[in-house]
């Protein structure tokens, strides 16, 4: 158990540090969008300079990845300490851009490297992630390997001191703006489908790699198709053992689920409580109750689902005494969060009526347009990171111990 006094004194230090170091020029800027490299996010030179200064300050403290060892660019802190850093940065109206600046680096690649990487690999890759300087993407899904990831066909041929990769990946987040990629590739075509797979790391800036952004229903292009044509991955960048990539990726995907169990960062949906929006658009009776009783019932159910999700996330943290293990609970929380968030966006749209179907232009408030885009992009929540149905497979098999329901290769 952490000493509560020690944590509170740490909180005070963090608060003072944030107040002193968060650049005033960044107040109110869409840092998540800018740091995440979103196409729609625009930033002035002042904001960009402020962001870079803020990144450097955080990186010096090791707060880009506070729980990682100091030697790898972290701060060697416990989860409760890391939570306090996040809370205090949020409380100050600031934002920690480093996780977003690294793509999949802080949330997925780094934790997996810490477990599976050689000393040499950890020394070479982790600092660039913790400091927010190197952005990572992941080459996992393929056109014919989605939920059935192990059926992937991108090949890596052994060329002596390196692997040559050939094949196509899809849904690679931020591939067009990343410096490095972690890719799941087939290294033994004769072995069983999960037994001939390896996990390699490769730089994206090379002739053998081509990326094509995919335009989504929300109008943005966070994902790419990524083509490998004799793309080169050094032997020293094989993560884990040869043909044992399935173990590596299973762990990586657990880290992914863990990172998708909470909120979605800054959201237009949170700029005004949904019931207040409903009172504004729908109207109330003399007692202040919404006049649309059907909507009111569905709204309160959504509020309760949100409360139940938050309480469960909190309870699981408490039970682990502050140490959030990557666990089966992540699948439950990913699905409950997805259900809640998608329903919430649908309710917001319904409440706004025709203002909830605007695409662009002065007929619609910025907030209204933002909500519409979030409604659309949020449809991905039940698809990415293991679909809603895949999470239920995991719960039924790994938590409840029911027999495997899917085909094993």
């Amino acid at each position: 158990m952490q000493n509560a006094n020690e944590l509170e004194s740490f909180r005070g230090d963090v608060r003072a540090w944030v107040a002193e170091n968060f650049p005033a020029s960044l107040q109110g800027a869409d840092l998540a969008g800018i740091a995440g490299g979103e196409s729609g996010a625009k930033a002035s030179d002042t904001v960009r300079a402020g962001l870079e200064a803020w990144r450097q300050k955080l990186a010096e403290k090791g707060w880009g990845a506070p729980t990682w060892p100091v030697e790898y660019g972290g701060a060697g802190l416990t989860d409760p300490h890391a939570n306090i850093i996040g809370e205090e940065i949020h409380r100050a109206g600031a934002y920690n851009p480093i996780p977003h600046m690294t793509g999949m680096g802080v949330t997925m690649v780094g934790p997996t490297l810490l477990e599976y990487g050689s000393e040499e690999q950890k020394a070479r890759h982790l600092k660039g992630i913790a400091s927010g300087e190197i952005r990572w993407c992941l080459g996992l899904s393929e056109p014919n390997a989605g939920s059935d990831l192990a059926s992937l066909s991108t090949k890596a041929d052994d060329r002596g001191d390196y692997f040559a990769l050939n094949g196509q990946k899809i849904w690679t987040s931020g591939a067009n703006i990343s410096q490095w990629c972690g890719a799941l590739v087939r290294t033994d075509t004769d072995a069983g489908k999960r037994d001939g797979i390896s996990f390699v790391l490769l730089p994206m800036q090379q002739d053998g790699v081509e990326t094509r952004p995919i335009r989504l229903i929300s109008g943005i292009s966070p994902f790419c198709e990524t083509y490998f044509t004799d793309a080169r991955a050094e032997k020293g960048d094989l993560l884990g053992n040869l043909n044992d990539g399935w173990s590596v990726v299973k762990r990586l995907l657990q880290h992914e689920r863990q990172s998708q169990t909470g909120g979605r960062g800054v959201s237009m949906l949170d700029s005004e409580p949904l019931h207040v929006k409903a009172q504004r658009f729908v109207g109330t009776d003399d007692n202040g109750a919404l006049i649309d009783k059907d909507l009111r019932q569905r709204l309160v159910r959504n509020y309760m689902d949100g409360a139940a999700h938050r309480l469960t996330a909190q309870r699981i943290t408490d039970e682990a005494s502050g140490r959030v293990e990557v666990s089966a609970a992540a699948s439950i929380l990913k699905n409950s969060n997805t259900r809640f968030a998608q329903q919430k966006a649908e309710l917001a749209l319904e409440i706004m009526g025709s203002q909830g179907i605007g695409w662009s232009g002065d007929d619609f408030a910025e907030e209204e347009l933002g909500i519409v885009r979030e409604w659309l992009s949020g449809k991905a929540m039940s698809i990415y990171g293991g679909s809603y149905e895949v999470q239920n497979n995991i719960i039924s098999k790994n938590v409840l111990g029911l027999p495997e329901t899917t085909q094993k290769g």
Partner: protein
Amino acid sequence: MAALTEEQSILKDQATSWVEAELPVQKFRDFRNSNSDGGFDPKAWSAMVDMGWTGILVPETFGGSDLGYLTFGVILEQLGRQLCASPLFASAYVGASAINMGGNDDQKQRWLPGIVDGSEILTLAVDEQPRHQRNAIACKASASDGGFLLSGAKTFVPEGMSATTFVVAARTDAGVIELFLVPANADGVSRTQMDTVDKRDHARVTLTNVVVSGEAHLAGMPSGELYEHLLNRACAGVAMEMLGIGCCSFEMTLDYLKTRKQFGKVIGSFQALGHRAAELYSAQEMARSCAEAGVIAIDNGADDQAAMSALSKAKTGEFLFDMSNQLIQIHGGIGMTDDFDAGFYLKRARALEALYGNQALHRDRYATLLGF
């Protein structure tokens, strides 16, 4: 499971093993089949008294242990798992809460030690119509000669036949709902057993010009507040019992999914059922968080106790409603037979769903409390 103190953990383990050894659902079946009077086995009840469960909410000066609502809730959850019948909840949770919050020192001295040693069985008499509505109280308490004259008719009173004292919700001359302690053997009190699906003790209670002294009035809180607070606390307790019923129903169902074979495989290997189990398990985890948060909010004296109580009853109710139906559905034909226990769980689930307001009522309360 909420983080428990060492003392709470010991009590929980004690309750779990005692319930499994001494009061498994088979005992409830035996009791139902025996057509005995009263709603519970007196020997089991005195064992609960001996284990100190009746004193969990009572201050030490009045013979209790004052361990709080989460502790009591954890016990209720264990009792719910095996559908243990007893007046523990009605008397030592709801009754003791009423006296603690609304009683003066004399009233506490008069009632609390009796609740702890089991010689008094209190129960809240609130409903007057089939659907619980907090304000639908017509029962009257008119001031008379320094005391009160009570008249009205109550229904669906838990442990109503075995109670020694009713905590009656009645309207004063000022039109406010207040609570009055009425001995079951007072002149003008009559009661009749209701035969309900859960085969527990529920009674109709009629009060005809019942005379009580001023000391019967629980006046320790500002006008009308005690009644609201007491119902909020009662709902959080019911939610913990419902959680236990739901969790045990889930475990029975999961067991069956792993053992019942059709088409040459255990039926849990079919994805439709695997996913249904996953959804039910997720709902159970959400319900647990809400139910525990309800009693924890009381212990913490949280500002949002009323909302948390509504959340706990509504979300636990939602889970138990689905779970009890799936308990029958997934067991198929065997689930329909009286020889199997599933029916007991379904029936008790619906009795508790109705008690102190169903899911819809608590969703409505939650929305109102949040301001819409």
